[in-house]
């Protein structure tokens, strides 16, 4: 088995040589290299914020003459001036990079992970429906592996649970009308409701009977593709409103749990969640396309014929070969996440003060754009620089990782 794996690993890009080649190409991309250096510096800045920041980012001055300490223009003590509460802008900026970069990388990483898994499943199993449901008394050829046996039992629960739901919903919807009808008042509406109820129940009964011996197969690709279509129709804003309300509500168990686990970081988690809900789609589409073509390649057939498990084929052999577009997509997502965090702050759904992020610093600064314009530039420029570097790096990576693209 080991030799087989080795043989398969020698696919392009996955060998040491391919990565070295890519690195060599990337090194020649000057803008990308500069960006990489900038990003590394930014990350170091975030990590070592307490050692770099000249002041405490949340400390407010106290004592006499407070007014003069607010909105100070840049000076030797406060290199970037002070904000509306006399806090050092430079220190806030340095600390702000922590949350902004954390949100950016965490959201990008999670969206790419989710997108890759779903996209890979969709691509690999496209046209190869999976056993989704096998009734308790169905005759099923082939061996039952441990995990599938568990799923099989679980699926009965899901199937009959869903039927039960349909039956109850039908009853609740028509209950009043039918009661009135039974009491003797058979209006058209009541009759229709009753007919609908009886019809639905008959259908449910039939499905329940069929379910005993039925076998259903499901094309994962169709499910995921339709899910993507569906996600595209969903508006982001109400999802944000509902999610942040539910996740922040201390009365709900979810909200309680969120607070217990994440504490003050819960707003970071909420923002990351929102970003992931919409961020996985592009990756999934991308990965699905790559996998669809990769699974027809010889190395896949070889692995299949040698009896490698489907999981290992997908995640050990196919996904690494689709790494290039995934990495590029990941960089783009980081940029998007940082911009969205800023936009959410602008709408009042950002990270809670006094924690500083570039987004909430910029939002706060726009209130004072007229009399303290210097407040807006540091966070604004930091966002631009970071996102710019990430985009340049992504561009460089695209060139470097794409074997078809030649550089002159």
């Amino acid at each position, binding site marked *: 088995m080991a030799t087989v794996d080795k043989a398969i690993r020698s696919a392009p890009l996955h060998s040491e040589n391919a990565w070295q080649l890519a690195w060599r190409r990337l090194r020649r991309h000057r803008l990308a290299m500069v960006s990489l250096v900038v990003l590394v510096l930014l990350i170091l800045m975030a990590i070592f914020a307490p050692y770099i920041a000249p002041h405490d980012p949340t400390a407010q001055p106290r004592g006499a003459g407070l007014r003069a300490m607010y909105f100070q223009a840049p000076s030797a003590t406060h290199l970037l001036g002070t904000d509306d509460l006399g806090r050092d802008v430079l220190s806030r900026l340095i600390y702000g990079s922590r949350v902004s970069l954390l949100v950016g990388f965490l959201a990008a990483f999670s969206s790419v992970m989710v997108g890759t898994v779903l996209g890979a499943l969709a691509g690999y199993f496209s046209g190869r429906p999976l056993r989704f449901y096998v009734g308790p008394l169905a005759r099923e050829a082939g061996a039952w592996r441990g995990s599938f046996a568990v799923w099989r039992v679980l699926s009965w629960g899901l199937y009959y649970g869903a039927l039960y739901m349909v039956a109850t919903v039908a009853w609740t*919807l028509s209950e009043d009308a039918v009661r009135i009808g039974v009491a003797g008042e058979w209006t058209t509406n009541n009759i229709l409701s009753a007919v609908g109820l009886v019809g639905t129940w008959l259908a449910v009964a039939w499905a329940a009977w069929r379910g005993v011996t039925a076998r259903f197969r499901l094309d994962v690709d169709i499910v995921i593709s339709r899910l993507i279509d*569906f996600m595209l129709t969903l508006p982001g804003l109400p999802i944000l409103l509902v999610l942040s309300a539910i996740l922040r509500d201390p009365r709900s168990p979810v909200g309680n749990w969120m607070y217990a686990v994440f504490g003050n970081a819960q707003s970071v988690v909420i923002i990351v969640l929102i970003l992931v809900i919409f961020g996985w789609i592009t990756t999934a589409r991308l990965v699905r396309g790559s996998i669809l073509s990769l699974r027809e390649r010889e190395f896949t057939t070889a692995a299949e014929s040698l009896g490698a498990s489907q999981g290992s084929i997908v995640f050990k052999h196919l996904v690494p070969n689709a790494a290039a577009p995934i990495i590029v997509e990941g960089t783009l997502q980081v940029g998007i996440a940082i911009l969205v965090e800023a936009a959410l702050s602008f709408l009042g759904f950002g990270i809670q003060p006094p924690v500083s992020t570039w987004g909430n610093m910029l939002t706060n600064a726009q209130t004072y754009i007229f009399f303290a314009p210097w407040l807006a530039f540091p966070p604004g420029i930091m966002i631009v620089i970071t*996102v710019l570097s990430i985009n340049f790096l992504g561009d460089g990576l695209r060139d470097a990782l794409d074997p078809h693209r030649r550089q002159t």
Partner: protein
Amino acid sequence: MFTYIVRRLSQMLPLLFFASVAIFSLVALQPGDPLDALRMANPTMTQEQFEALRRGHGLDQPIYVRYFRWLGRAVQGDMGRSRTYGVPAAQFIFQERLPRTLILTITSLTIALLVAIPVGIFSAVRQYSAGDYAVTFFSFVGLSTPNFFLGILLMYLFVIYLPETFGFRALPAGGIPNLMLSDLETGRVTLGEYLRQWATYLVLPVFTLATGSMASWTRFMRASMLEVLNQDYVRTARSKGLNERKVLYKHALRNGLIPIVTLVGLSMPSLFNGALITETIFSYPGMGRAIFDALVNKDFNVAMAALIFIAILVVFFNLVADVMYAVVDPRIRYD
């Protein structure tokens, strides 16, 4: 092709059904009650009266009952009244807000395309020239600048700083001109004046809004032209000695535009979506603000009308983009 379109259309209905269920649940699950505003205006309203009102509006019913009631009315074209404005929700969205948003978004789209296509071509043809680097750099800057940062900077620059320093008449800081379409019919303003006034109000928001798409479309145009220019048939055409101009416009451009067509097709729904942040900064009463306000004020009917309308557009333009793709690119076949 025909069967493909029919199949896609038949998939649209269930998709829209599920979308409407999801959107309805999201809007309905929001914290707070749609009658909060009414209750706040009437602090002495008793709890019994409030409960009676909730019952009357069916708000005490389970969510799926409310959904089917809403659906029943919606398919008959009745989107209900706006709880905030008192006018029919459809009238508010489609007659008042939508035209205004379209003025803003279509202008931005047009300007973005007018800039992105030629600049992208230029950048691709002169790959690795100084001009190309400049275009690349600026398009990345455009992509990386938060919309509201750009908007506020522009506002400060063109409304305060430049006019004060150089002494010219400032652009309006925000809002929209006091003009109605009927003013043209009644002759209150001439067409020229009408357009001039709108133009002064639109400059800043349009520029703010256009920057992002301009930058990204320039990138795409450049990439897709590069792709095409490296294709064999272009090289063949060149080696045949056809003049460069002809190669470029006759052979390369047609194919290079394909991905842009798809992109523009897919971004069509966002034209109707409005641009929440740009609209907020420039006090522009468009769809973005309307949807946001409707959601936070729990103006249920308005939010549903607008969101469902946009969901329909998304589904429709997805289809259009796919079909267009097949039309412009004969290599693609749907079966």
